[in-house]
């Protein structure tokens, strides 16, 4: 069978990719996409643990249902905040306001 370490390594690679994307990118939408990729990686790790644990309960799967719905709510709010940011500064690039302060 597929050993659990494979699933975990893959989940950690997704988390690392999401973290790297959140730190390097300057566009706000790409940062949000990085956060969602990290969320997906965490979900995969949760379900993998739920399947391979010695006593099979539905804790992992039930938890994931709650996590997915909370992620949906917070993504909606984050996008509304981005719309407000765009109305105020007329850009979605993160670099510009800091440069204005320096100047």
């Amino acid at each position, binding site marked *: 069978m597929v050993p659990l370490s494979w699933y975990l390594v893959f989940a950690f690679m997704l988390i690392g990719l999401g973290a790297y994307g959140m730190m390097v990118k300057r566009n706000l939408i790409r940062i949000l996409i990085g956060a969602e990729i990290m969320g997906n990686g965490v979900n995969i790790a949760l379900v993998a643990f739920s399947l391979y644990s010695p006593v099979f309960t539905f804790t992992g799967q039930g938890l994931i*249902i709650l996590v997915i*719905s909370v992620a*949906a*709510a917070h*993504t*909606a709010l984050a*996008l*509304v905040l981005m*719309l407000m940011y*765009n*109305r105020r500064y007329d850009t979605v690039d993160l670099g510009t306001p800091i440069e204005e302060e320096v100047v």
Partner: protein
Amino acid sequence: MRLFLDFIPVIVWALLAVVLVIVMLLASWVLRPHVLQNSEKTSTYECGEEPIGPARISYPYNYFIYAVLFVVVDVMGAFMWLLSSSTLLWDDGVTKYTLVWEVILFIAIIMGAIMFVLKSLPDAVLDGKETLEQYRKAKAEREKEQSISGRH
């Protein structure tokens, strides 16, 4: 392995969908007349006038709230789907009576919020008249800028 054997029809459908899209695009590419494109042919059409500047002035943010509403109803639907695809509400025993009350409370909370949003939606977005004001103001500002830059 059993789950994979159950989902083979889904894979066949997915491949069919991809093949269908590619066939349609290929067919339109084959049947198109291939002529050269120049910049006048590919520019945007604006009822015969020359397009000045970008096409968006006031951002229609009021349509975004409907997408947020859809996501909330989608999550609610997922929970209902889980409950209705089990046999919990038809089993013998006491759980189904408490379950009905829980479902009613869940739906009532979300429906209350949806009704509140729909009632206060006219306060949160621009009217037709206000959008017209904003458009006229933006157009006047742009014409002022153009006249200033035209003088220099």
